């Protein structure tokens, strides 16, 4: 297999995890216009949960998803109940909610990072798991990347199936599109908001657990993943799981190829370059249909 194809495939593998991170943030931003820039910190906590269970208790990292997911769901519910619920209730316009949630979640980001610093210090922490080579379609990848991709893909498919194949998921998509419409048909809007925020945080936690199998952890890893997720959401369109998935894969491939041809130091430059291009050429996202254009969506 050609080297380029191999590089692109390794980008796809990482892109699958990017997609899962973005899907979680998309649930929160697409549904409630809560711009939670502490999303990456939920991911960081998920990573440390896995690290601690693996290094102190000898758990299999995959098993730790059963802890990091539910734990971060509970954290998400608590954060929503304590902070964002009031913002949503008091907001007068969508813009006001976006601005206020951005400010509050910035604060939350610093608090969570510093708590992590106090608990686990700034040292890099990690463990080795499935780092032997694995052959896939003639190319060789670390086995842990393939496993992380498969699990991220599985979660994304499950979420897609829930949103498109069940009445509860369809109702959630409806709520994302028109909150007044949701009230008119009697949907429990507040409870759905809380559950969605929790679900978004849980997906961040699971993503963190998966990433901890690949890279070492520090308390400040969250920010770059938040930015990555925001770029993927803009690529894929607000509220669209399939769009986030495609956007995540695309960003992964662009990043891998770009780094291959330039230098790893250009990683963030490349990501922002993709973002700038999309914002100029397709401001509603690469895959957005007419009906999903933001100006036709009801103000949340």
């Amino acid at each position: 297999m050609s080297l380029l194809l191999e590089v692109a495939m390794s980008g796809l593998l990482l892109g699958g995890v990017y997609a899962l991170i973005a899907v979680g943030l998309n649930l929160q931003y697409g549904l409630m216009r809560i711009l939670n820039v502490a999303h990456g910190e939920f991911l960081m906590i998920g990573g440390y949960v896995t690290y601690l269970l693996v290094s102190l208790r000898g758990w299999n990292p995959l098993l730790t998803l059963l802890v990091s997911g539910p734990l971060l769901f509970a954290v998400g519910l608590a954060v929503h109940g304590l902070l964002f619920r009031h913002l949503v209730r008091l907001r007068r316009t969508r813009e006001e909610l976006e601005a206020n949630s951005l400010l509050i979640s910035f604060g939350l980001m610093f608090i969570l990072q510093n708590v992590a610093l106090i608990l686990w210090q700034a040292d890099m922490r990690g463990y080795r798991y499935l780092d032997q080579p694995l052959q896939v379609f003639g190319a060789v990848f670390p086995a842990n990347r393939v496993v992380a991709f498969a699990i991220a893909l599985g979660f994304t498919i499950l979420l897609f199936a829930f949103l498109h194949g069940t009445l509860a998921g369809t109702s959630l998509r409806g709520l994302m599109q028109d909150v007044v419409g949701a009230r008119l048909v009697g949907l429990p809007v507040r409870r759905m908001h809380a559950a969605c925020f929790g679900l978004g945080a849980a997906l961040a936690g699971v993503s963190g657990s998966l990433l901890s199998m690949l890279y070492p952890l520090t308390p400040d890893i969250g920010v770059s993943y938040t930015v990555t997720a925001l770029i993927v959401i803009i690529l894929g369109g607000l509220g669209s799981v399939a769009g986030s998935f495609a956007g995540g894969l695309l960003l992964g491939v662009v990043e891998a190829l770009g780094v291959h041809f330039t230098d790893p130091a250009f990683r963030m430059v490349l990501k922002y370059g993709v973002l700038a291009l999309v914002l100029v050429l397709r401001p509603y996202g690469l895959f957005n249909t007419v009906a999903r254009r933001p100006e036709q969506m009801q103000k949340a």
Partner: protein
Amino acid sequence: MSAQALPQRSTGSGDPRAGVLLEIKRIQAQYREVPVLWDASLMGGRGEIVALLGANGAGKTTLMRAVTGLREGFLDVTGGDVTFQGQSIAHLDASQIVKLGIAHVPEGRHLFPGLTTLENLLVGSVARLARGQRREALERVFELMPRLFERRHQLAGTMSGGEQQMLAIGRALMQNPTLLLLDEPSQGLAPRMVAALFEIMVKVRQAGVTVLIAEQNAHQVLSLADRAYVLEHGRITLEGAGSQLLEHPTVRRAYLGL
């Protein structure tokens, strides 16, 4: 100022309150401390079409929102009461009111543009109907509006204005309501579509649903209405049977241009 009541049409019942489903009693409401409704009272019997006439800004939308609890934009109900089947509902929120069987099609419709017709209808039934009742409700809506069946897999946001209005009514009917509130349903629609909508209203009434319609299209709505009210500057100024209001000089001058 109290409303000028026209002689009531005989309903065959001695008690004028028999069969009353909805009663709005001297309601007062304001937006951000700006009063919009003063002492407005209204009554709707079971299986009646009740028309609410009024110019833009007269308070029709506010009156409807006071009934359905849709308090977007800081609407406060500051006085009076709303009763439904004899029970006060003024303090309930929108989702509790939906569960009682009151469905609302507001101005702007508020459909889910990225969902298909079928998905919009099914989501409409979630809060009120058990799983087993949904298919039956769906069949009723499709029978009433075959156009929706033809468009069942189309995204709501890509349909024409008239079809969207039908879908909004269909989604409300998926709640199996006892009372249906329609805010300016004919606004912006072609005359043929308006006629079709009013035909649907008649069939909905035949099914025993009370329909409260706020309209500026006075002629059509009054010729159907069992009861009608004129709302001016937040006050009910005229009430009576639809056919009586059609003949009333004020209505003829102000709303029919005669």
